[in-house]
């Protein structure tokens, strides 16, 4: 019953996420939050760039990184971003089932990215590259780990949203949440592109 | 008329106070307002220029402010609505452009001096090179050209450029001799060594201070800069390099070697460099940078220091007779436990370490 009430007498507008002031506030507020997140990652990048040559006796980036695996992770995350685009498209067409399928695909890809990252960190630690090894290792784990934590949070969040959609259906209350989670997912994807470039590619170049 | 006089009368004590303040420019060996060298002089000139410009601004603002407050105050029963003015383009342009001009007048000499004072004389054979290392809470001065090290008292020749290379042995400090020139931080870690040059045209002793919070005894991390003529400086260098005799008394010697020389060094016996070098400590102006030897004798000051170092400079790295070190990497270093006899002997020996220069 309650799910039904939120659909304005059964009719969802084309962009249900922007139908109410609450929805518009949520989207605007979330963009502002992403502005803050940009500064957060910007600072982490700055710290990493300042410290990346301080490897001491630990392994150097050139020695450490395995580009093929990182490239695979990058591709997985990019495709997951695409999946979340399709989810938002389905949202606009009010195709709830399709949307949920795409969201589940997004989550699964996010999980496989996380799996790869955990495997990667594990390998590094076994090669003597720990948080405490050098200034380079500290800034590396903090930057990449912060991103990983963001992915993990995104997976959890979208998972909960799927549960909520099952319970309440697509309404003007749930739609903005789906929409901002998609923006969030794109954001962490963009951050990863920068990590791939600045940490991994530049690490290989020297 | 009456009113104005009353205002003036009220302002009189304030003006008198100001005059008193301005006349009190502080000690010649400490104040930035009585520069004793060209570096401090250049900085003082910029200070004067900026204060003059800013005084002009303050006077204009205060004048308008006082005028407005008197002229436009609301009279009793006045209920008229003033004209609602949106703005005035001419005025707004004036108070945008005039400050820009004032800033240009200030900005050009600023940039000039920024570059002028950052000159590097490291390769200049005429300059004296000094490596400064700061420690909690003392200063180490090394003269790499002469192969000597001293502490707490910087000896420099007059008339030559002194090029400093500054770094820290522990936390960040700042090296500052106010009457000779501005400060610079001493950083720990690779790639953050700083350079600074100063000049001492006049002979004399100038007070130096640490200007960056560095722990409990930051306030007490003073040093002295003593400028002497070239001949005297040469004699000092020679005296610093001369061999130093150990205490004659065997018991005192044993205590000195086992309790002091583990960290300190004296003469060529460079057993330790974790603590101030003691060569010539008897002819320094102070003990520990803050106990003045003209107020008490060197020997008494040394005795006070060795027995109560932790009280005199809380948190420093030297254990005293009965107190352990409580802070920093030397934390837990146990008290020296010197006997009264050893203490007397060591103080007397060190007080006798005088250099002729």
């Amino acid at each position, binding site marked *: *019953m*309650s799910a039904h*009430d939120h659909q*304005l007498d059964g009719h969802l507008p084309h962009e249900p996420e922007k*139908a109410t002031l609450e929805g518009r506030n949520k989207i*605007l507020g979330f963009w*502002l939050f992403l*502005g*803050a*997140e940009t*500064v*957060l990652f910007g600072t982490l990048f700055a*710290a990493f760039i*300042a*410290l990346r040559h*301080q490897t001491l006796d630990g392994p150097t980036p050139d020695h450490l990184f395995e580009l093929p695996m990182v490239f695979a992770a990058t591709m997985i995350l990019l495709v997951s971003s695409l999946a979340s685009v399709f989810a938002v498209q389905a949202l606009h067409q009010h195709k709830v089932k399709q949307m949920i399928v795409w969201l589940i695909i997004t989550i699964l890809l996010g999980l496989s990215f996380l799996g790869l990252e955990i495997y990667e960190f594990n390998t590094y630690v076994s090669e003597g590259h720990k*948080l405490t090894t*050098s*200034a380079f290792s500290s800034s590396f784990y*903090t930057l990449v780990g912060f991103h990983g934590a963001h992915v993990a949070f995104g997976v959890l969040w979208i998972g909960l949203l799927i549960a909520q959609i099952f319970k309440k259906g697509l309404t003007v209350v749930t739609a903005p949440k789906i929409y901002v989670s998609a923006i969030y997912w794109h954001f962490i994807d963009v951050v990863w592109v920068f990590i791939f470039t600045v940490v991994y590619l530049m690490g290989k170049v020297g | 008329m009456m009113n104005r006089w009353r205002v003036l009368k009220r302002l009189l004590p304030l003006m008198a106070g100001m005059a008193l*303040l301005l006349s009190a420019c502080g000690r010649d060996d*400490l*104040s*930035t*307002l009585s520069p004793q060298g060209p570096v*401090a002089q250049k900085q003082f000139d910029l*200070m004067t220029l900026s204060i003059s410009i800013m005084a002009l*601004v*303050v006077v204009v*603002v205060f004048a308008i*402010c006082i005028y*407005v*407050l008197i002229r*436009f105050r*609301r009279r009793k029963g006045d209920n008229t609505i*003033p004209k609602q*003015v949106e*703005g*005035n383009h001419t005025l*707004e342009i004036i*108070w*945008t452009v005039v400050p820009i001009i004032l*800033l240009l007048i200030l900005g050009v000499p*600023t940039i000039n001096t*920024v570059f002028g004072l950052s000159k590097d004389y490291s390769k200049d054979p005429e300059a004296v090179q000094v490596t400064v290392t700061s420690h909690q809470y003392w200063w180490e001065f090394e003269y790499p050209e002469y192969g000597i090290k001293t502490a707490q008292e910087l000896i420099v020749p007059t008339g030559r450029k002194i090029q400093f290379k500054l770094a820290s042995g*522990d*936390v960040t400090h700042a090296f500052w001799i106010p*009457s000779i*020139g*501005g400060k610079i*931080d001493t*950083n720990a*870690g690779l790639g*953050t060594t700083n*350079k600074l040059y100063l000049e001492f045209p006049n002979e004399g002793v100038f*007070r130096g201070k640490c*200007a*960056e919070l560095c722990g409990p005894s930051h306030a007490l991390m003073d040093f002295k800069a003593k400028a002497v003529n070239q001949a005297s400086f040469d004699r000092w260098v020679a005296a610093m390099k001369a061999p130093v005799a150990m205490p004659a008394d065997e018991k005192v010697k044993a205590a000195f070697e086992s309790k002091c020389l583990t960290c300190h060094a004296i003469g060529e016996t460079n057993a330790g460099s974790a603590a101030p070098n003691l060569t010539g400590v008897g002819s320094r102006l102070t003990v520990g940078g*803050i106990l003045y030897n003209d107020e008490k004798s060197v020997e008494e000051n040394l005795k006070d220091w060795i027995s109560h170092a932790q009280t005199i400079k809380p948190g420093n790295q030297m254990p005293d007779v009965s107190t352990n070190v409580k802070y*920093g990497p030397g934390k837990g270093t146990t008290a020296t436990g010197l006997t009264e006899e050893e203490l007397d002997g060591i103080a007397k020996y060190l007080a006798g370490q005088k250099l002729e220069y």
Partner: protein
Amino acid sequence: MAAHAHTVKRYRGLMDWLTTVDHKKIGILYLIAGGLFFLVGGLEAILIRIQLIKPMNNFVGADTFNQLITMHGTTMIFLAAMPMLFALMNAVIPLQIGARDVAFPFLNSLGFWTFFAGGVLLNISWFAGDIPDAGWTSYVPLAGPTYGGGHGVDYYLMGLQIAGIGTLIGGINFMATIINMRAPGMSFMRMPMFTWTIFITSALIVFAFPVLTVGLVALTFDRLFQANFFETGNGGNAVLWEHIFWVFGHPEVYILILPAFGVISEVISTFSRKRLFGYSSMVFATVLIAFLGFMVWAHHMFTTGLGPVANGLFSIATMLIAVPTGVKIFNWLFTLWGGSISFTSASLFAIGFIPTFVMGGVTGVMLAVAPADFQYHDTYFVVAHFHYVIVGGLIFGIFSGLHYWWPKMFGRMLNEKLGKATFWTFFIGFHLTFFIQHFLGLIGMPRRVWTYLPGQGFDTMNAVSTVGAFLMGIGTIIFVVNVIVSAANKKPVADDPWEDGRSLEWSIPSPPPEYNFKQLPLVRSYDAWWNEKQKRQRRNAAGRAGRTDPYAFAIDPSARHEHRIVRSGAGLHVRPSGRCHRRARRHLWQHVLPLRVRRSRLPHRA
């Protein structure tokens, strides 16, 4: 179903305050918490001054002194000044923009309680016995694991991290509120100046606080997990901390001072009965100050050794900030010019602000001269400078704003006699304390020293400074007395108690009802309420009857900018919206435990 009733349990008394999401109540909570921390920070300041009253004093000793200066700085900036600003923001902004609440009422409450938790955690250190002592700037290596033993700095890191999250939430909330929730017709260029400065301050919070977050995380990792960000022995870089701290820290000082600029603009305009002179240049100056504020951080680091190029650039960039600031000063003076100035406590603080802030501003330009800064840096000159801008600027602004908006916030007037006594004691005490400190710095006294040797010429000036600090303390106590006296006074307050109110908050009752506006106002100009009053007066003078509804704004064809505002399709008044009423009643627990209460069943109106 048909009733559309909203069966939320309404709490009363203490529970109501603990769970409220009403911006007006949250504003009062911020004021109480910020006020308490202000008293704590003030007490710390008094202890600092007692310690320094004479040379080689041993009143608190070296360790406690460093703890006092650290806690004084941190408390005053993060736990007193910013919350008191948030108090004014919460109390005033939704009213000024004609909104029924902020964009995210629940986040507003969350932000307050997060800040409060962080503040309490930081101060628990006094009882735990491990107190932060590396200065509010917490420079490494002194604050690092090697030299900063114990858990003192950990309290600083955790406390600020948590309080900082609360602040960030507040910043996002107020940006979104001001962008999305303005009343119909209130374009950006019709917003009151205080709203503008809060908008810009919120933007600064959003873009500056995450930098601090990263800095605190990195230092926490160093201290707790043996990471090496700032461990110079393991390749870490201590100067990096200084950069991170000041990239945050410099915008932070503008976060503090811009709202004070806003308060002063409102108060001066109201009490001189004049429109703010050069409104658009004021707005532009505010934006420019905020923008430049992000590119001058290294002027805190002239003596760090960044080299002449960096020092030169940051010198010039810093000086440039003087231009928009000067524009503001003159705009205030010319708002007063030709006005009809009444000297209430609020306007005294605002008028006292102008010369005081100018003095702090000019010493700021002097500090921007890098070679001269080599002499000023880390001396009492700097201490004097930033107290002139933060106390003489921000705290005067807060006092002014509190005296001004107190009737709106609490429905009670503050006593004017006590208010003026507060002003004079605080004003004289302030100048006595800090003017002399400029000279202490110039004659060679470094800052953050727990004592000083006799015979250096510091003795008299320090004693005078301490006397001034006591006078400021007395001023603060008089204010507290005033608050208590006003609470006992039951006389109700008019909607527009100063009679010269200009912005929308004065068009509604004091204190405002929970929903603020019975009908959302239609804004036709800058100074909307003032212009409405003028129009009514003209109409009354012309013999026509005024409108019966005091809260509704009339259309006047003669109003300026008439053509621009007819974009709201809602006609004369915007319909009261049920949505906002409901939201104002929603409480904290409902969000935390959504299952315990029935969900809203009302359809949402666009």
